[in-house]
């Protein structure tokens, strides 16, 4: 029995040797994807932060009403200074960017608004000078106007909505929601590109170079060649996928810091990460088996890549669907790729059902096994392996 698997072990070993001893391949499939994703997403995050500004607005206010002073003092973002020079000076400051906004209240603002609601009342005007070409200035304008609005609402109080207290009943934060929408699609696309980097080369490439036939002359069983190839290619693709996933997860806090805080990877436990690993493994097995079967049909790597292109599109669309369709029923977890994306969505939303998890993993493994059987049949077919 041991001898029977020696050929399979030799093929696995050879595929690993082909990959791990090739520095170029190692760098392009294992190190670069993770590194690139980390760098690109971190840069994107820092751009977002820059656009939002550092969060502090310099504001010059003329005639600050006594009633509003404590309100603005409470907002940490505003660095308020009293305007004691003439208007033109401050306006030019706003234009040149030395100041975010310049606000002018009427001199006796508090006295005027005390008569609000009486007949003959003329509402006083607050002037806010800003520069629409500067992002910080626009943001400061909106923030200042929002405070004024809130004050206006407060003094003409007719009714209140949600003042004080926590009314959000969701158990999870918005961060988990965003994670559960982005991560599954990106993860599956990354896994797919990991498989694409190795599988066509190993099947169609060997066919193209005539090295596959050399293996077919030996007494190793075709099924052992198929299993050996799928196992080794899956391991390599998984490593490539893990590298990308690591880059993605590590860059998420940087990517989202400009939008909101609260993305904390520590909210996922070891069990969550293990489940993700399980999904990734079963998905990679399936993807490698699919890509290998298609590659076996092709005469060259180039041809294989063009055959696989439509599959790539299907995989992207199907994994995207998981973010749109909420709460699918258990049988839907039998749909390949979609089930993987759904499970990752569930894990990210901290709402995974054990039954669905098992259905997804088991069905992926069954599909992969069926494809290995198909691949064996293809390796036995002289029309597929030797037709030129």
């Amino acid at each position, binding site marked *: 029995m041991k*001898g029977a698997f*020696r*050929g399979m*072990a*030799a*093929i696995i*070993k*050879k595929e690993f*040797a*082909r990959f791990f*001893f*090739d520095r170029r391949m190692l760098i392009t499939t294992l190190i670069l994807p993770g590194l690139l994703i980390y760098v690109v997403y971190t840069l994107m995050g820092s751009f977002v932060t820059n656009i939002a500004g550092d969060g502090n607005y310099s504001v010059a206010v003329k005639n600050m009403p006594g009633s509003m002073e404590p309100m603005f003092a409470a907002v940490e973002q505003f660095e308020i200074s009293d305007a004691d020079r003439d208007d033109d000076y401050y306006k030019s400051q706003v234009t040149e960017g030395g100041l975010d906004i310049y606000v002018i209240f009427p001199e006796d603002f508090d006295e005027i608004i005390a008569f609000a609601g009486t007949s003959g009342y003329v509402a006083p005007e607050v002037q806010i000078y800003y520069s629409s070409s500067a992002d910080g200035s626009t943001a400061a304008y909106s923030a200042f106007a929002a405070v004024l609005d809130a004050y206006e609402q407060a003094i003409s109080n007719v009714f209140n909505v949600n003042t004080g207290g926590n009314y959000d009943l969701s158990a999870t934060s918005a961060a988990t929601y965003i994670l559960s929408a982005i991560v599954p699609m990106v993860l599956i696309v990354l896994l797919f590109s990991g498989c694409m980097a190795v599988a066509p080369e190993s099947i169609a490439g*060997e066919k193209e*170079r*005539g*090295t596959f*036939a*050399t*293996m*077919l*002359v*030996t*007494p*190793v*069983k075709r099924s052992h060649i198929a299993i050996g190839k799928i196992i080794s290619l899956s391991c390599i693709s998984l490593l490539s996928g893990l590298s990308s996933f690591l880059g993605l997860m590590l860059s998420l806090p940087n990517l989202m810091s400009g939008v909101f805080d609260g993305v904390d990877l520590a909210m996922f436990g070891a069990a969550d990460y293990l489940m993700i690993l399980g999904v990734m493994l079963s998905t990679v097995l399936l993807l490698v088996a699919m890509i290998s079967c298609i590659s076996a049909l092709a005469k060259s790597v180039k041809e294989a890549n063009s055959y696989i292109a439509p599959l790539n599109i299907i995989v992207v669309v199907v994994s995207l669907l998981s973010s749109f369709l909420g709460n699918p029923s258990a049988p839907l977890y039998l749909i390949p790729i979609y089930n993987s994306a759904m499970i990752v969505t569930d894990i990210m939303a901290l709402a995974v059902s054990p039954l669905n998890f098992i259905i997804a993993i088991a069905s992926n493994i069954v599909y992969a096994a069926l494809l290995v059987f198909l691949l064996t049949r293809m390796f036995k077919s*002289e029309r597929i392996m*030797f037709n030129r």
Partner: protein
Amino acid sequence: MQEILSVCNLKKQFKLSYKQQKLQHTDKKVLTAVDGLSFTACKGEIFGLLGPNGAGKTTTLRMLATLITPDSGDAYIEGYSVVKQPDKVRSRIGFLTGELKLEDFFTPNYLFNFFSELYGVPADVRARRKNELFSRFGIDRFAEVKLANLSTGMKQKVSLVISVVNDPEFIIFDEPTNGLDVLTAKTVTDFLLELKAQGKTIILSTHIFSLVEKICDRVGIIIDGRLAALDTVSAMTKEKGLEDVFFDIYAQTAGGVQ
């Protein structure tokens, strides 16, 4: 003499695509590559298959090596059928052809070990054989150089050594000296004679008359997938050289050289 190979009425047809039909100026949808071929080879002999390009030599050898299956007929190597027991046949033969390539990325040493494992050669036997064969062909000097960096001659030596990695009793060589310089070609023919001296059976396809005259015991001339003549080389060349004999036979069967 013990019969090691027996080929019985072997037939193989290939479908022609529309493009191939146009290229070959024919309306036929099917090309008969091998048409009812029968012959035998005995232990310890070198059997030559001689014929022009496209005669069906390579197709015959590929069927014997179990890479493709015959449409009808069968061949038995050491009593095992190439159709029904391909796994048994594969473990008993060596096959060398220009079509079967070795991966450029690996070294001769790695490839020898890899194929030894595929054939299930025990580690101690493998080490001994590697030593013998590598020093016999001078591969030990470049055993750790990637194939991509070797010359054509060096590569052919590595292919030769790997084709006999399992120490087979029956070896198939498809045009083994094609594209080689005279020195490397001589190394190959010397090795074939050495194998014969060890009692191995060799079947060899070629279109080089001198090679047949020099090393083959018997020769079968294939024309259009059929065996046009079969005899010992000495009997066939009793009156004139093999080349003239071949042209005579060709003129009789195919109606002269075009």
